[in-house]
Structures are given as structure tokens and as C-alpha cells.
């Protein structure tokens, strides 16, 4: 179950959220009204050098003062406000969505090659595991996640998603099976620039979770998708691997295929499987991951979940259903389906 859709405009032309809302709503039979969400890149041009921290507060007294305290310790809050929301009849408000625009002091994280990112990652992990009543669900620059428990159109209208304009959009319609439908459990999942939407279940979650935890991440959201964001951050940012190699680590070719590759390719794939065995993801999944530079979509190694690609000019669409893409863009062309495990990458071309 679950419906996913992602789009990138390779020339960075901005799209508002109204059409992706409609596309996601088309996939309502893939959801259960217990979670939906949107991620958009390029939405905060006025604060593009700041980390946009989106937080769910249970109240804005104790948890907020604790988070404020931590942020003051690690950097400077450039601006903060409640995320504008609009009451919806079908959506029960559980938290107070808040956003900070934050600049960390980079000299506080000695020995890191990406000190600001590491400060931000630390703040996210620390908040989500130790501050009762606060959950950071979005922490990238010039991007933001908007999610809640509810149907796609209610969640979109709650945040008035059409007011935001981005060059990459991800959206997710949730049918929770393993964990309760709660606001934090809705997709997209995010850490720094990485945002993830996922249809499926990750049967290797226990292994993947232990792997990311042994590398300094804390899984606190009770959901398998959370590890995907951390795996991309670990392999993509910290290990510096390009997206296609990250996908090869997460959904590698079978040994039989590797054994039949030309020698050089075989050596590389062999090394990836040996080194990143604990990052290998099993189970049925179709995933779209975004950063500020592009999107990548891929499925599990035996393709137990659907994924459809479409293109129109500078736009690349990745979704669970062709019909959803057609809602966004009736003129879409080159509809096709990637092979199992094969990454579909859309990069900015500006």
C-alpha cells in the first residue's frame, strides 16, 4: 500500500503544490487517512543559507524552551514562527507545527568535514530522542516537509500547500501497517537535505537500524522509512558516494549477476556488497529520495512494489501510478517502468 509521487524540474522552474496535492489524492485507495505529507525544495529563498527546522511541539512552553536553549548553544536563530496552518474538518490537530531558520556555529564541531551539517544532525538526534514533546521532522536548507495524520487533501489544505513554490516536490499517501498512524510517522522522512517517501515495508529494518545506530544515528520514529533517510545521509554525505552507488548499496544486484559482470564492474559491485551488507535493504519497497540537487527513485531487488516514470521537457516524474502522474501533467511522455533495483535519477541541469 501507500502512494508516492515525486517530481523535479531540471531547470529549477518553480511549481506550486496544488497539482501534486491533486495527484496524491488520486491515490487515496493506497492510503487510510492516517498519514500524508509533502516535501518541497526551493521554498525558502529568503533564508536559503539557514537550516529550516520544522518541529512538532506538543506545547510551546517546556519542549520549546528546551529546544530554544539547545539552538542558542549551537548557533543562531535567524527567524522563527509557527508554520501557518488552516483548520480542516477532517484533520485532528495533534501538535503545533513550528519552524526555525537557523545558522549553526561551524567551529563547534571539530574534526568534521561538514561541521554545519553535523551540528544540525546532532541537534535532530538529540531533540528527537531526548526532548519530550518535540520532534524535528525537517532540517534541510531551503526546503521543508509538511505532514500530518489525515487524507492528502486535508493535510495539503491544513498547510495550504499551494502557497509554497518549489522545483522538487515529493508526496506520500500513507497506509500504516507496522506502526500507529501518528504525525511523526507520516512521510516524507527527512534529515538535513535528504527527504524520503516510501511505499512498502523494510524487512531488514532490524539490521539497517543497528547499522545506522552504530554510526551515530538514533532511530526514534518507530518506522522503517526513517533508516532510509539516515542511510542516504551516511553513505551519500558522510561517505561521499554518488546516488547511483548508494542505490547499488541499498538494492544491489544479485550475486549471480555480479558473477557475470566484466571484471572491473564485478570488483566494484563485490566491494559494495561486502562493505555495505548491513545497509542492504530487503522487503517490498519503492522509494523516492530527494536532495536539493535532484531526486532518485528505485525499487527493491525483485520489484515487489510498483514504480512508474514519466517525462515532459525538463520535468521528471516518479510515482506509484501512471494515473497520478497524468493528473499532474496530462501531456506527460515516455512513460516507463524501471527494472528492479535500477535507480532513476533526475538531476538539476542549470
Amino acid at each position: 500500500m501507500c502512494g508516492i509521487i515525486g517530481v523535479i524540474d531540471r531547470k529549477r522552474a518553480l511549481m506550486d503544490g496544488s497539482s501534486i496535492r491533486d495527484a496524491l489524492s488520486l491515490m487515496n485507495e493506497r492510503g487510510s487517512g492516517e498519514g500524508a505529507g509533502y516535501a518541497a525544495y526551493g521554498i525558502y529563498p529568503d533564508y536559503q543559507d539557514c537550516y529550516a527546522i520544522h518541529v512538532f511541539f506538543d506545547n510551546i512552553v517546556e519542549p520549546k524552551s528546551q529546544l530554544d536553549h539547545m539552538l542558542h548553544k549551537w548557533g543562531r536563530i535567524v527567524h522563527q514562527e509557527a508554520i501557518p496552518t488552516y483548520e480542516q474538518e477532517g484533520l485532528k490537530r495533534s501538535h503545533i507545527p513550528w519552524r526555525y531558520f537557523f545558522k549553526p556555529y561551524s567551529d563547534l564541531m571539530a574534526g568534521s568535514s561538514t561541521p554545519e551539517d553535523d551540528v544540525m544532525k546532532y541537534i535532530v538526534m538529540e531533540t528527537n530522542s531526548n526532548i519530550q514533546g518535540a520532534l524535528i521532522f525537517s532540517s534541510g536548507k531551503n526546503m521543508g516537509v509538511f505532514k500530518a495524520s489525515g487524507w492528502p487533501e486535508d493535510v495539503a489544505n491544513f498547510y495550504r500547500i499551494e502557497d509554497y513554490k518549489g522545483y522538487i516536490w515529493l508526496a506520500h499517501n500513507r497506509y500504516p501497517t507496522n506502526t500507529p498512524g501518528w504525525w511523526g510517522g507520516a512521510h516524507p522522512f527527512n534529515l538535513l537535505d535528504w527527504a524520503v517517501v516510501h511505499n512498502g515495508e523494510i524487512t531488514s529494518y532490524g539490521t539497517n537500524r543497528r547499522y545506522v545506530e552504530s554510526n551515530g544515528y538514533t532511530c526514534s520514529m518507530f518506522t522503517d522509512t526513517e533508516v532510509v533517510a539516515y542511510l542516504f545521509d551516511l553513505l551519500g554525505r558522510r561517505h561521499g558516494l554518488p546516488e547511483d552507488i548508494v542505490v547499488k548499496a541499498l538494492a544491489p544486484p544479485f550475486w549471480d549477476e555480479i558473477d557475470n559482470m566484466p571484471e572491473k564492474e564485478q570488483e566494484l559491485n563485490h566491494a559494495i556488497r561486502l562493505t555495505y551488507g548491513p545497509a542492504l535493504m530487503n522487503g517490498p519497497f519503492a522509494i523516492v529520495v530527494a536532495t536539493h540537487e535532484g531526486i532518485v527513485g528505485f525499487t527493491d531487488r525483485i520489484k515487489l512494489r510498483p514504480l512508474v516514470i514519466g517525462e515532459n521537457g525538463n520535468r521528471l516524474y516518479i510515482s506509484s501510478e501512471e494515473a497520478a502522474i497524468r493528473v499532474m501533467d496530462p501531456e506527460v511522455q515516455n512513460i516507463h517502468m524501471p527494472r528492479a533495483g535500477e535507480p532513476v535519477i533526475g538531476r538539476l541541469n542549470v
Partner: protein
Amino acid sequence: MSLGSVPLKYKITIDREQCMHCMRCIDNCSYGVYHKEDDRIIIDSRKCTACHHCISMCPRDAISLQERPVDYRSHPLWTAEAREDIINQARTGKIILAGMGNAKPYPVIFDRLVLDACQVTNPSIDPLREPMELRTYLGKKPSKLEIDKKDNGDVELLTKLTPNLKLETPIMIGHMSYGAISLNAQLSLAKAVEKTGTFMGTGEGGLHEAIYPYQKNMIVQVASGRFGVDINYLERGAAIEIKIGQGAKPGIGGHLPGEKVCQDVSCTRMIPLGSDAISPAPHHDIYSIEDLAQLVRSLKEATEWKKPVFVKIAAVHNAAAIAAGIARSSADAVVIDGFRGGSGATPKVFRDNVGIPIEAAVASVDQKLKDQGIRNKISVIASGGIRNSADIAKSIALGADAVYIGTGALIAMGCRVCGQCYRGMCPWGIATQRPDLVERLDPEAESEHVANLIRSWTLELSELMGAAGINSIESLRSNRSRLRGYMLDEGTLDVLQVKPVGA
């Protein structure tokens, strides 16, 4: 005054109506239970060990064996075993020897762990129709890959991987030395691992020439006695294993009595004919983790860094800290041998009372390595009391990369777990060097039995993985979320990092 005799353990009877007087029972019993008087077969049940060789060879199914009910005054504390051990020690003043694994009725943690299966939203995978990958590489892995991506899209791999052992199934056969078991038994195991694409250990008995054709599937052992160890031996192995401890006897050395050291064993072990082969409890060049690291490096240096080096320790209370130290050395794998591990001969008090269960040891080692961020630096091999494919799946889910089996492989060759291995009279030709007994074991036939066991457990493991929606063994490893504890106490669940059933 004499202490007198203790009651019989087993009672053998022959159905005289069925018996055809073929006398095979007499020929088959190496313990001398049967003898012939005139035309009659006379039975001395006191000598019986329940090895079942006579029963399995009787053409008329005329022999039956009963374990005798205890006829002492019943007592919850002073059990028959406790009393008989005292009587035997009062008589001899010696340490009581025992063979095979721990015989105390400790609860088996494996039996209180249940595996997961998929339903509906997460489809199970059918291994008959979908690929299922059990291939396992044992050895050091880098914590990250360095690559260079060129502008034209070409990718150059900059990281050089260290040699790993490639297994087609995560099941290996543990170390049982030539001396403890017969050459035919070793040959059977060697042929079996070659057939199934896996590995076996030589034990500390050296490598007999007859095994040379299978050397690419052998892990050679360096124990404290250094028996049979020279550069030729090290170079023949696919990997080298340093034995620090053994699950059945943590903290003590080994002893092969001189009477078992025949010409062949003497040559293979490089010791004088008829001399006792005594491995000391410690390696006399290892008194710290740094010393161990030095031996690891020496062995690597001697073999030009081409072979993985494993270190085997018994599962003991601080196994996790020791394993973390081993991981930081140049060692490629740590073998943890649980307190149910088999043994050719060990003091009974050790076998039954020293060490900890493999389930807890593997879980705590995996956890420690994870906490220190070095789990990928080393492979973990679990051994000691693995009885079936479910035990293997559970071991892997608790954090093992692969397992060693020992007793299971012997049972596949006929062993009836009678526990008399240390007497050297094994009627199945396994734990003996007596030529007439050794020749009873046909390496061709028994290798097929052992290979079949490995194949069937591999198939079952695939099915268990498929049911859990997992098609690659990497994704079962350390996957605690696919296990639940049933009737396990909170403390044990905490060590295992496993949730209770229903959670």
C-alpha cells in the same frame, strides 16, 4: 570395605525368538557387551554405552535397549548422577572425564526464541521461484568505500579489500582434530564441505596428507600446543584459526593420550610416537590482547597477508570485551564457542558448569561491536550446540555471520551421542583410531550424509528467510526485530535485545 557396584545404566535384551545367531552384535560392539558361550550370546549390559551400533546392525531387529529407571531412593538434590560421581571419585581420586556437549538440563534459549513470518502487506518470498542468497563472506570489511567518479561516469574503486572466505552457505563444520576423530571421519567431513562449498576446521591435529586434496576448504588451527604447525601447514589452509578456548572446556588445555598417538597421528601432529599430546591451557606467548594481536600479525606475515585469520574463544562472561579487542587487531573473524559445544574429552565439571550459552554470547558480542562502531571490522562465527536450521537462523539474527556445527555433523555420520568419545572405542569409527573400527566408516557414503545435512539445513534456512520476506542473508544478520522471546526473563531479553512475544 568395598563401595560395591552402582546400578546398570542401560539394559540390553535379545529377543531369542528373533535372533538368528549371526553374532554380528558380538563383532559390532567395541565395548565388549556381548560374548559367545557355547552357542549362546551372553550379554553384559553394564558395559553398554547406548551407542546403538549393535541395534543398527542386527538383521532381525532382535536387540532392544532400555535406559534403566533409577532405583536409588529418589532425592531432588542427591541425584543418581551426583551420587555415582562421588562413588567413582571416592574410588579413583581422579577428575571425571566426559565426551560430547554439556549434559545439564539448562533451559535452551534457542527454544524460547521464535522467528517472524510475513503476511499480506509484506509478501513472503518463495525460494523455489525467487532468488535466495545465502552466500557469505567471512573476513574484515572496510567501514567505507573510497571511490573516484570520473566526469565521464566511470567509477574507480580506490579501496583495496582484504581477503575474505567465500561460503555458499553460512554453515561450516567446526574444528575436530585428527586424533580426536579418525582420518576417515575427517575425510568424510572434508569431502562434504567441498561438495557444499563451505569450510571445515582441522582442529589442532595438523593436516594429514590424505586431506591435502581438500585444503582449499580447510581452516587450519593454531592451538597452544602448536601441534602440526609449520609453514607448509599454514600455507595449505584457506584460513588460519587461533584457538584460545573451546566452549566445552573454557580455560583449560587439551590432552590426547599417548595410546591414541599412532604412527600416522604422530607424523601429522609432529610429535613422538606414543607420547601424550598436551596443549597447555594458555598459549605461552599470549598473556594479553596485544600478545594475541601480535600472533595474528605474525601468522599473516608468514602467509603474506593472503589468508584470513580467525580467533576462537569460549563463550564466557566477558566475551564481548575480548571480541572487541580481537576486532581491533588484524584478525578477520572471531569464533564464539558456546557452553553446549562438543568435546572429545573434557573434565565433566567443566563441560557442565563453565561458560555461557552461545545465544547470549553472540548477542552481547554483536551489541558491543555495534556500540563501538566496529561491527563491520570483523565477522562473528557462532558455535556450540547448534542442532537445526532454526538454531542457525536465530544465531544469525542475534548477530552471527556464520555458524560452525560439530556434533550435528557427527550424528549425520552415525554418532549416537553416547558421550564416550574420550575412550577411543567409538564403534561408528568416528572418535577412535583403532583400525578395525575406523574402517567401518566409509568416507564416500558418510560425506554424502554430511553434505545432505548441510544442504537440507541450507534449504530450510532459505525457507525461513523467505517466510520473513528476506532474500539475502545480510539482511537476517543482527536483525533482532525478526525475533521474539517466549517465556524469557526481562534480563535475558535485555541481553539479547529482543522484544517479548506480542510486542
